[in-house]
């Protein structure tokens, strides 16, 4: 609670409020651009926060993430094209509502349910984050190392049908994290005489390359399709108020709450994200509805289920990232690196070490959640216009933005080269079926894992027993082994289900 009180006293400055507002605005625009994701938006703007105070910079990043998740629903409703993968299920009822001439209602319930879900999940994070971080700070370096390994393994499962590729992706990231002076002797590893690498591979250019530029490499190859534009959206004040009331307190409150909980639980699990949450929540809402046959015909419940779920994922994905140092998604990894870029050490004990910055960040999350309700309605029409812009044009602008932003962090053209190289690496990984996010997480967790590994070994006098014979370590090993075999168990279950279906 102290962290929150400190955050409240620090948040209400002109610059923090402006950062929350601009972040939401930019996030919604990024989210509304089909083929542009929240992580791309955060990655492109990450270097910009370097020139800002840490709390303002982090509020900006959090607001972009929150805004982008809502922004994806605008083209999903109005153009039958989800702006982000997290809004894929919103298309089903959202576009059907727009076709029925209820686009205004769809937008209002989408903005309201997004705001409510994000706000509730943020409150949960505000309460549990500092507590989780406090207790996590009491675990030993050996267990921190195991937690980092768990993060890599869980995210390795992101590779879907091919988790081995995901694990190898994670190892690539961990290996790249070993570049530079080591923690024990200061010996330069894999630097090949390049003094720019003595402190390790610069994180910001590498992440911008892996997440933003690799997406742009794919984007410029796609032909700009014709988007299905619908008619004008007109809001009447009275109707907006009625829809807003219905979503929060009226006939849809149960749907909003249920989907918030579903999204929150899915968001907390590293590797699962908004794209999973919105389909699961939609499916659950349909199952529990008295009129499941009406789903898909254009009803507000369908939109609320998807939007509340994908927006509650955002704060919950940040919870393990901030409290434990395990990023649950690519965007969470970027925000984690943003925390590191500002000289803070995320993970166990971060709320005790930096209460002002982390408290302001949490209050910023709450503020951004409320802002999307206001900005979300004002920006609908401009966002639709932006969504129609040729993607090649936007990719060109992003190249300039990313290059200048990366250059400005250390005034180094070498960093721009690193960004391009990592962009190519990210594209290569994606092309071969390995999500670049696995390498990102490896790169972010690498130094934390190595520091914990070497510290644990020096505590135990070189004995590996420290990694096994402690109660928390033993529990973590059980979870690690379970996570390793989870994809295999999943594929076996799917195979048997398929065989049963064929037999029927």
């Amino acid at each position, binding site marked *: 609670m102290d962290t929150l009180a400190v955050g409240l006293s620090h948040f209400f400055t002109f610059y923090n409020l402006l950062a929350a507002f601009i972040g939401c605005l930019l996030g919604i625009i990024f989210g509304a651009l089909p083929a542009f994701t929240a992580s791309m938006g955060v990655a492109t703007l990450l270097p910009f926060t370097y*020139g800002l105070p840490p709390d303002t910079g982090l509020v900006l990043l959090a607001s972009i993430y929150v805004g982008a998740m809502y922004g994806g629903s605008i083209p999903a409703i109005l153009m039958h094209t989800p702006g982000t993968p997290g809004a894929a299920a919103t298309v089903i009822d959202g576009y059907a509502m727009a076709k029925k001439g209820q686009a205004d209602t769809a937008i209002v319930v989408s903005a309201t349910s997004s705001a409510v879900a994000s706000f509730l999940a943020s409150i949960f994070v505000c309460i549990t984050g500092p507590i989780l971080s406090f207790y996590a700070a009491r675990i030993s370096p050996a267990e921190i190392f195991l937690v980092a390994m768990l993060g890599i393994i869980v995210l390795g499962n992101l590779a879907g049908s091919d988790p081995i590729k995901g694990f190898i992706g994670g*190892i690539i990231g961990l290996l790249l994290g070993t570049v530079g002076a080591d923690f024990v002797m200061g010996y330069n590893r894999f630097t090949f005489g390049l003094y720019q690498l003595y402190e390790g591979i610069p994180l910001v250019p590498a992440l911008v390359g892996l997440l933003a530029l690799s997406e742009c490499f794919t984007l*410029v*190859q796609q032909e700009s399709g014709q988007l299905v534009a619908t008619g004008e959206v007109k809001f009447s004040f009275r109707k907006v108020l009625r829809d807003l009331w219905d979503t929060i307190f009226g006939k849809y409150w149960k749907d909003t709450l249920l989907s918030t909980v579903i999204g929150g639980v899915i968001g907390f699990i590293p590797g699962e994200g908004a794209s999973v949450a919105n389909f699961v929540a939609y499916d659950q809402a349909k199952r529990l509805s008295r009129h499941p046959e009406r789903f898909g015909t254009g009803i507000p419940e369908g939109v609320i289920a998807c939007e509340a779920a994908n927006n509650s994922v955002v704060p919950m994905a940040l919870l393990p990232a901030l409290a434990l140092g395990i990023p649950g998604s690519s965007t969470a990894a970027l925000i984690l690196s943003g925390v590191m870029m500002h000289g803070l050490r995320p993970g166990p004990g971060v709320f005790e070490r930096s209460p002002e910055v982390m408290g302001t960040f949490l209050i910023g999350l709450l503020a951004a959640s409320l802002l999307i309700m206001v900005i979300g309605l004002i920006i609908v029409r401009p966002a639709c216009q932006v969504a129609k812009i040729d993607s090649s044009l936007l990719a060109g602008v992003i190249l300039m933005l990313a290059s*200048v932003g990366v250059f400005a962090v250390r005034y180094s053209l070498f960093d*721009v080269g690193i960004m391009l190289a990592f962009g190519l690496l990210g594209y290569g990984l994606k092309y071969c079926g390995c999500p670049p996010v696995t390498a990102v997480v490896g790169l972010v967790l690498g130094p934390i894992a190595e520091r914990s590994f070497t510290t644990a070994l020096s505590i135990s006098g070189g004995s590996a027993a420290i990694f096994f014979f402690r109660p928390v370590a033993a529990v973590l090993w059980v979870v690690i082994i379970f996570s390793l075999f989870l994809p295999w168990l999943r594929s076996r279950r799917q195979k048997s289900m398929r065989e049963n279906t064929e037999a029927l």
Partner: protein
Amino acid sequence: MKDWKDWAFLTGFLAFALFLTISSWDYPFIVAIYPRLLLICGFVLSGLKIAFIFKNKSEVKVEVAEAGPGGSENRKYMWIYLACGILYMLLMPVLGFILSTFVTMIVLLGLFRIEFKTALPVAVGTPLILYVIFVIALEIPLPKGIVENLLF
């Protein structure tokens, strides 16, 4: 197609891992232990992947066409994009930030066949907006380059 991608992925990783193994050959034990453990894990996983590829090859399977990120027709745009990124990096110390951004944008958008009447305002607007954000608002200096220093 999937097999080809699997082999490309494994070849790339093994080449990278082998390169790191050779590079770290004479490192002191305490410095090399962590990367070597990672490399061992990587080699074991690669071996497992190869075993799975051969196991799957022996099973009869139906080939399903995969949607990759762009066909070879469009892949040239990716290389153009990358080349423009390198060009921008090389031009910046010579032309300075404003001119190099303008030139690179014009070249890039021209090669992407964006209409000139659209490309020109974007190419002019991008450096100006970035200048306002970085130099004026955030007070972060950007390179002036030889040409900009001579001109202004």
